[in-house]
């Protein structure tokens, strides 16, 4: 069966050891986590995890249920097929010289990314977007020499409901952008 990347959102109690329980479960069931991000949710004492994992639909469904079984898990949703907004944040430290600095800045501008630090031999770029956008920028910057890369991994949220026709359009747009 074909594997695809799934985005799971887990709401969990904000208690010590919860991340360990979740990570341990993925390890035990033989899943590689592509990325996992954890932070506060809208509810006090509840953390929100966004987990990206590669697997078949049935195997990811099994992991979702196992995850749901953890006592400290409030809710787990596989939002892969939903109409979602996906974002990632990255910092890149790019080697620059006075000769090519403006070229780098131009590329960064095209990607609507920001320069957050400048030194004599490097620039630090801050960029948000979906994974493809970040990877494309990284590929373009690679030619200049990238000294450090730091990516947060995906966060994702389901879009609000709007009128049916508009909703369909936005889903199509988003899904093509996601890929």
């Amino acid at each position, binding site marked *: 069966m074909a594997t695809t990347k799934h985005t799971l959102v887990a709401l969990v109690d904000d208690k010590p050891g919860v991340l360990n329980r979740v990570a*341990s479960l993925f390890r035990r069931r033989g899943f590689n986590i592509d990325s996992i991000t954890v932070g506060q949710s809208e509810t006090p004492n509840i953390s929100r995890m966004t987990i990206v994992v590669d697997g078949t639909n049935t195997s990811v*469904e099994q992991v979702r249920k196992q995850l749901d*079984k953890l006592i400290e898990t409030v809710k787990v949703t596989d939002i892969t097929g939903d109409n979602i907004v996906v974002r990632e944040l990255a910092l890149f430290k790019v080697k620059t010289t006075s000769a090519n600095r403006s070229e780098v800045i131009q590329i960064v501008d095209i990607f609507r990314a920001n320069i957050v630090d400048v030194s004599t031999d490097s620039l630090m770029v801050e960029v948000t977007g979906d994974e493809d956008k970040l990877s494309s920028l990284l590929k373009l910057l690679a030619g200049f020499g990238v000294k450090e890369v730091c990516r947060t991994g995906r966060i994702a949220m389901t879009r609000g409901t709007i009128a049916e026709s508009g909703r369909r359009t936005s889903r199509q747009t988003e899904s093509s952008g996601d890929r």
Partner: protein
Amino acid sequence: MTMKMTGSQIILDGLVKEGVDTVFGILGGAILPLYDTLPQFPQIHHVLVRHEQCAAHAAEGYARASGKVGVCFATSGPGATNLVTGIANAYLDSSPMVAITGQVARRFIGKDAFQEVDITGITLPITKHNYLVRDASSLAKTLKEAFYIARTGRPGPVLIDVPKDVFQEEIEYHAPGKVDLSSYKLTMKGHPAQIQKAAAMINGAQKPLIIAGRGVILSGAFAELKELAEKAQIPVVTTLLGLGSFPESHVLSYRWLGMHGMAYANLAVNNSDVIIAIGMRFDDRATSEVSSFAPNAHIIHIDIDPAEIGKNVRVDVPIVGDVKAVLTPLNKLIEPAQHGEWLQQLDIWRREHPSTDIRDSVAILPQYVVHQIYEATGGEATIVTGVGQHQMWAAQHYLYNTPNSLISSGGLGTMGFGLPASVGVKMGRPESQVWCIDGDGSFQMTLHELATIVQEKLAIKIAILNNGFLGLPRQWQELLYEKRLVASPLYGPDYVKVADAYGIAGAKVRRKEDVIPAIEKAIACDGPFLIDFGIEPEENVYPFVPPGASLEEFLEVPTKEEALWQRQSTR
């Protein structure tokens, strides 16, 4: 009204409030404050075992026999790690247990202090949940939660790790409120639409089959299962751990399925058109090769754990819920039926593949011994086993007609489970005759519990099927590894002398005619009794579905000619 209490007092008070009267354990440095407080709570009887693994097994045996939550204590470090096998066993067999371990004092945690291990980390994948308690004020709530989690839903072990200074800390005691676990969801009642779908499928079936598992026992749904089977004349097979969920002498019982299950039960599974799987989890020892499991059947799966649905086999009608709560409304929708042709077919298979015939022999056959124990106890005993050939023979040649009458290690397959578990079983069910049917390999793993048996004055009857081998691996070596018997021959002591050294009466049986008198002597004896049965050493367990084969591809007892040929080709 408030009062000052120490952490230890809060724990023991909490245990009493949970109805705990028996705990199994071994003390040590970190848990000494708790033991020091025990005399203040005379309602709790502490059973000192000889190894922490056995504390966990005994607690599980107690839980499974009594229906209550089993409790065990161990100290930090090696005490806690020794519990691990027993906790894993309880996890895989869904037994309710609370394990309380001592931990080094809070200021030493993370410093690799003496006897410090991260037992919550270690037991993370083998507990339903676990806790490291960081202050005494959360103890009462934690304990209450732990018991609630251990016994509700799909039961399982919960571990509470308590630092030494938390036991000693004195605080204002506040009684814990109701357990409030918003994140812990239980689905007890099955979805009505799913139940209707299942009923329609059962009512339309030509060749229906019930596979009953331990969930029936845990749910106490004995009557409901029987009603379902009888109402629509549906044959019943059980899993190994489902033995004791449906009387095996019942006309609709086709006993149990799987690797060493009845050949006719396996044939029934693979030829049925609707399988009603109740409180079982399609373990690989039950299904054998899943891709060829029940190829013609639609599967209805009733289980309380949603994660079990679709985990191993495809399911057509899943129903998440407690077995009893699902069967009660389901039974109302079931139309009376006969299924005469299908039952006749099953009877033909049973005649063609009897699976448990015992051949004539001069030697003492293990099957014969188990059968004689069945006869002598009238099938009324509670049987506890270790793991191996003896376990399979005990499951095959004893008919489990009384509810929950076999207590065995299924999922983990823990050798050495039998003796310590029988300690707990006897304490949880004192009125019952308890027989520990063990192998010489299994027995040698935990035989030190003979001391606990004497200390607690437990009239446990121990039958060792002694073949001088680690028998099940030996059988695999013979059949699957070209008879290379590497490390399976096993030296054993004189078990009757060992028993005698502990103060336990015993008998060594080496002639077939002594089998019955020895069993009778054991039953007549007021206290514990051990019988060492010297059995045919290279007897194999049949039927046998080799690993990777389909359930239908069972090997049966070789005929006399085949056996002779096999023996000659060995030499």
